[in-house]
């Protein structure tokens, strides 16, 4: 979970997505294949090579008004084809905190 904000070289080791936060309200979003963003991981464009990742990230970062802090995050693709977060950090970003909130949501 080394902060991906410190990513310098872009080199992916498996299927990945580009994720960010929506500028006006901060919610977690994923870059789709249609040049926009979705809050659903299932809508995310999957990249499998470092070149693809770089290209998708560059396109995402260009949307400076809509999204903040874009970076490349690993995913896991189940046999069923379902996309799941690829590490604990991304799991937490998608599902929320791993503890009970003091006031139930």
């Amino acid at each position, binding site marked *: *979970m*080394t*902060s991906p*904000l410190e990513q310098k070289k872009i080199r992916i080791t498996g299927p990945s997505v580009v994720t960010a*936060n929506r*500028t*006006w*309200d*901060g*919610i*977690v979003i994923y870059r789709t294949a249609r040049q926009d963003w979705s809050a659903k991981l299932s809508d995310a464009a999957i990249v499998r090579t470092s070149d693809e990742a770089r290209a998708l990230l560059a396109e995402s970062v260009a949307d*400076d*008004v809509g999204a*903040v*802090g874009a970076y490349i995050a690993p995913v896991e693709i189940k046999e069923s084809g379902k996309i799941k977060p690829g*590490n*604990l*950090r991304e799991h*937490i*970003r998608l599902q*929320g*905190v*791993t*503890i009970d*909130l*003091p*006031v139930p*949501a």
Partner: protein
Amino acid sequence: MYAYDELDRTLINERVEEFRDQVKRRLSGELTEDEFKMLRLQNGVYLQLHAYMFRIAIPYGTLSSAQLRRLAHVARRYDRGYGHFTTRQNIQFNWIKLAELPDALGDLAEVGIHAMQTSGNNTRNVTSDQWAGVAPGEIEDPRIWSELLRQYTTLHPEFSFLPRKFKFAITASPHDRAAIKIHDIGLRLHRNAEGETGFEVLVGGGLGRTPFIAKTIKPFVHGHDLLSYVEAILRVYNQYGRRDNIYKARIKILVHELGIEKFAREVEDEWQQMRDSDTALTLDDAMIEDIRSRFSYPAYEKLPHLPEELKKAAADPLFERWRKNSVFTHKVQGYAIVTLSLKPIGGPPGDATADQMDALADLADKYSFGEIRVGHEQNLVLPHVARRDLPALWAALDKIGLATPNVNLVSDIIACPGLDYCSLANARSIPIAQELTRRFANHDTADLIGRLHVNISGCINACGHHHVGHIGILGVEKNGEEFYQITIGGRADENAELGALIGPAVPYGDVADVVEDIVEAYLALRARPDELFVDTVKRLGVEPFRERVYATR
């Protein structure tokens, strides 16, 4: 409590309007994120894992009941109904929307609350002793000086773009509850031989990747010279602090690289030149008196130390347990300082719900002259409670879950938000804290163990102050798994010291067991029941604890 006057309020409102304009320009695209980031940080707005996080300043940890109610309002209206009190006496909200922030700030400004400089490379909240003004043996109220410093550092044109963040803390008591030795500038208020008020000035404390205990740069700076001397330090830092590497940019690195003597000479040199050319920053008694006059103090009654109510309540063992744990001696007879634990068993440390905040505001009005304090241990304080009111207060606190009798004990854990919230984190901290409170839920056991500060940080930025925990826990990442390094023997007070590593990092599932092993070793090894954990470690070193923990690992 300090009463903001029209000038203070005008400044806050002007800042809110400026930020409103900056947010508008960000959302329209006129400002890029790169340009906006520093501006939002200067107003305490971070981007975290799930959302923006909003850090609000609670200057030197003092709040009025009206202000606490307004924080509850912000929690409900703009967030998810709760807030988190931090290790710098501030409060954080984790789910705030950028677009709504100017309105939230406007609501806060109405009661004199702001978020200026709670983040960014500038001078942050001036923190102090949460018992300021009421602690026995205090020389004088350090908050007067904290307020002078707060004003001096707010929107300072020369020092708003420092190499890195800059933190102040002030203490005025022999026992340092403000942790001044781990701050960029630490100030110890005392009187010289002539009876004049002044400060021992320490610089270069700080935790993080390269922790340092602050060093004394000048044993006595007269109160009148406080601001000019601080300006000299800041100017030297602004010009010579490193800007090429964010991990080497704090003043502690500059002090370390130059050496304290050379650094002190640079500052002295700058300070002398400053005083030669103008005296604008020199304070006089009238200015200090003006700030002091806007601090109001309660009209204490003449009350007995042992009133009837207290005598009767002594029969209740639950009340007595709480009183012995959470109630502290006040400088005025008949009154008490009450610490409210925000560390319920099984709960996340340092959080309070909006309902709790509202209820507490009412209790503060009824029992504490409308005043609440926030401590860096992430607990709250009611600083002016009449001892005759303690039983009634306890009953009310117990109803709202603010009477856990674990203050300063092993389950009174200080923890950063960690990977559940924070984008800088490597590992989670809150579930570790929760499990530890469950392991030590038995208050008799916790009492038996005695004073023991556990500090947990989810990454090396050390917001949980793990380096100076009696037991320090640092989250790291190994092959995608959460691991934790354990240190022991740290202290944050006037005998500040960094903890020592006991051995290799242990996995998430083992941390609570390891802490139990350490505690068991302490109980077996302590010289007397009242030898504190941290003193046993000092006496025996790390070895016996390391053996115990790693014997079977």
